[in-house]
């Protein structure tokens, strides 16, 4: 496996520019493992990203065609490439801010169109690259540089948002659970039509530091504790569910392949 993965990356681009313990690195590994397990040919794949730390996951690390676009625009760029060359397997990997704040409109429209592509949103609940400002995914009460007294704005439930927009595959998982994550990524990448995966991916540098997480591992641990799978959730009481995050597959509609 590891060898296969090494053939899928530009080793000269390593070590990555990510901070120590950044969840995006873990997600990078999971995406590579998923593709390796699917035995997809990297030469037929196109990875598109916006701007942000997460946008660096594929570019320049993946040895495949990569398109590192503008902040918020990854999906719109991907749409053009996919429509013109439907043979490309298109995977968008970008940050929560990129895809759901500035890029929210392209996200919901691609979901509506059932564009044949996979969108992986590395959600660290913060703007990592610009130094830790509040995001549209930051939990209520969290401290960020632009919410020094705690965030007062309700965050998106990204999965509900894209479901409401019409996505045919929707799932959520955290990097703390790399095996289920890889499994879900495989399903999403092989889905025909618009697949969206929200991946909870800690930013120790900007989120952790300001919100009482001592180490990167603390954040991993906290994710492990708060994530509950869709299967386990059944039969749990509201009290038990307080503060929990549902992970797993949330929507999986048959589709004839989506728009391409």
């Amino acid at each position, binding site marked *: 496996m590891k060898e296969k*993965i090494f053939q899928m990356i530009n080793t000269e681009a*390593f070590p990555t520019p990510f901070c120590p*313990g950044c969840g995006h*690195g873990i997600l*990078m590994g999971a995406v590579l493992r998923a593709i390796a397990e699917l035995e997809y040919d990297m030469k037929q794949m196109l990875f598109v990203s916006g701007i942000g730390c997460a946008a660096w996951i594929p570019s320049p690390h993946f040895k495949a065609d990569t398109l590192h676009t503008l902040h918020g625009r990854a999906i719109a760029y991907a749409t053009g490439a996919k429509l013109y060359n439907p043979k490309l397997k298109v995977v968008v990997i970008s940050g929560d801010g990129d895809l759901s704040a500035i890029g929210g409109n392209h996200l919901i429209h691609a979901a509506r169109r059932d564009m044949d592509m996979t969108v992986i949103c590395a959600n660290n609940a913060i703007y990592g690259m610009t130094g830790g400002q509040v995001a549209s995914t930051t939990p209520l009460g969290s401290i960020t540089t632009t919410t020094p007294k705690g965030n007062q704005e309700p965050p998106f439930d990204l999965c509900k948002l894209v479901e409401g927009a019409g996505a045919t595959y929707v799932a959520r998982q955290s*990097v703390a659970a790399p095996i289920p994550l890889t499994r879900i990524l495989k399903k999403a990448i092989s889905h025909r039509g618009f697949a969206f995966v929200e991946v909870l991916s800690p930013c120790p540098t900007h989120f952790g530091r300001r919100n009482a997480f001592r180490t*990167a*591992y603390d954040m*991993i641990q906290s994710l492990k504790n708060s994530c509950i799978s869709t299967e386990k959730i059944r039969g749990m009481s509201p009290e038990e569910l307080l503060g929990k995050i549902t992970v797993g597959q949330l929507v999986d509609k048959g589709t004839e392949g989506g728009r391409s």
Partner: protein
Amino acid sequence: MPDKEKKKKEKAKKAVNIHINQKWCKGCYICLEVCLKKVFEKSLEVSEKGFNPVVAVHPELCTHCLQCEMLCPDLAINVEKEG
């Protein structure tokens, strides 16, 4: 012997080789904390980039669960069975 157990046995038998890329490791210590077998320790050496990477001090305890490899954000760990 059922297949599953057979595999388990085999697993246990084989020695495990743990390679850590000292240039890629950033000393986040996720591996160190996630490993139930306490295979890793911080190295005292400072890497080029100023990090203290980890070293696998007890590879013999490793159960090949791969948690460390999968959770390493820097693709810096390679846990391989020998042979």
